């Protein structure tokens, strides 16, 4: 089983991103589970969401304390939340930032993947909403879900031109971290 923890701020769509991973993983013929950290959501406040992917039905329902992967949608969270807490040394943390890895001074043995998702989202979506872009980066950096399935999940949620724009953002992020 792979466990994923999302860190974002209220309004950035971290919960939606977790849901989309669960839908995409199921498309890949795996079992999945996604749930929010049940906070009292306020725009801008730090929020968490969780997802699990496994080859067998998932029974455990506690929150995730030792994730395989962490996705950070907003680099300013690093000042207020220990985003790498419990992250497995062989895991990965994917951070939306224009800074380089060393400047972030993260306390983790896990691989740090940086991506300027805000820039990609502004270019491709015209808005600094990075949750879908970060899913592209997650696909590219981990290979845990296929790009086809995440695209399918996206089109199930966002139709028409908005869906296409999101696919573009995802593709750019996917290629950005896969190199």
């Amino acid at each position, binding site marked *: 089983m792979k466990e994923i923890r999302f860190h974002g701020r209220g309004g950035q769509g971290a919960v939606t991103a*977790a*849901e989309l991973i*669960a*839908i995409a993983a*199921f498309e890949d013929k795996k*079992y*999945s*589970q*996604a*749930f*929010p950290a*049940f906070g*009292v959501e306020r725009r801008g406040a730090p929020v968490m969401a969780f997802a699990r992917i496994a080859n067998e039905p*998932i*029974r*455990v*329902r*506690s*929150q995730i*304390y030792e994730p395989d992967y962490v996705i950070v949608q907003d680099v300013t969270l690093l000042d207020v939340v220990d985003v790498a807490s419990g992250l497995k040394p062989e895991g990965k943390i994917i951070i939306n930032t224009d800074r380089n890895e060393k400047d972030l001074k993260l306390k983790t043995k896990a691989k740090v993947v940086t991506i300027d998702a805000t820039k990609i989202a502004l270019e491709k979506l015209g808005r600094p909403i990075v949750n879908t872009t970060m899913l592209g980066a997650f696909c590219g950096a981990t290979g845990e879900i296929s790009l086809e399935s995440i695209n399918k999940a996206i089109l199930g949620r966002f139709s028409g031109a908005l869906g296409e724009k999101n696919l573009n953002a995802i593709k750019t992020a996917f290629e950005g971290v896969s190199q």
Partner: protein
Amino acid sequence: MMKVVEGSYAIADAVRCCSPDVVSVYPITPQTHIVEHLSEFVADGKLDCGYINVDSEFSSLSSLIGASAAGARTYTSTTSQGLALMFEVLYNVSGMRLPIVMTTVNRALSAPLSIWNDQQDALGARDSGWIQIYAENVQEAIDLTPQLYKISEDPKILTPSMSCMDGFILTHVYEPVEFLDEEKVREFLPPFRPEYVLDPKNPKTFGAFTDPSWFTEFKYLQHQAMQRSLEKIEEVSKEFEEVFGRGYGGLIDTYAMEDAEIVLVTMGSIIGTIKEAIDELRSEGVKVGLVKIRCYRPFPAEALKKALKDANVIAVIEKDVSMGYESALLTDLKGALYNSSIRTPIIGFAVGLGGRDVGIKHIRSMVEKASKVKDAGIESEFEIFEVKPECL
């Protein structure tokens, strides 16, 4: 076909498949998404029913009294403060023998204000004359919905019922579920055709004044119907399994009970995490098993006696406290076993209050405490689990 959807959506869809005639629901976190999806179904023409917008939970359940007494299949849902506000109406519904079905989303009761999960709300309605069945996961909550209509509407039962599901943990989770097949539900669940209904041509009174010479008999008959439902719940559970291919064990279910020395007894969504913990512990040679309470009211005393007869120690894990005594299920279970030949020590833990997360490590710690009882006897019969040291 399985699909990954939010728990609340799945429940709303299960309700839709049961074709209620009248729905009246007042939104409250974390039950709100159920209401939203139901009203969407009605607006989109996917659910053809009377949809009553109300100003409170008191009104939602009250309006269903009229609808149900007029012969309508009815549905509502609430949680926590909403259920507390319904308290007076709960007793009216069961006393009038109206088979209303409600999804009770389990949430803590104020104060302090908490929107998060525990089961204090439904446990507080334990004696209100409603059947209460607790779901382990979203699929079980879906599948319970038509079963409860079938149980409640049986002319020999005519008792309202609650499908209890943990707030957020089950209402807000996205996981793969199998939707109900509408056609199959129609075969499984016959239309509601009550013998006694409100009818201007043949006027009747429901829930009217009763003097002391008959009140006892009303309560006796209600109690008898509740007792009869024990068998009905088992029967409907089996029938559901035959039609839909999914079964949950009737009144109770068991897990890893062969040769189990330490037996955990609990209900609700915590069971998934407990099963994982049991698998871990079993692989380390710890003989631990689980008895899952599905039906809490009526209380499955006989089924529990049978399931627990070989245990060396029993640990009840639950999300409620009866202030000044202990947790409710613990008391009920001890009571059920007292006049039997079972003399097994029983301890209890109140966990997950106001949404505190319960993980595998917590289950392991409770099993360890239970294991000590096996060797050294009971040191603490009941504890509120892992209270911060500054409060001890």
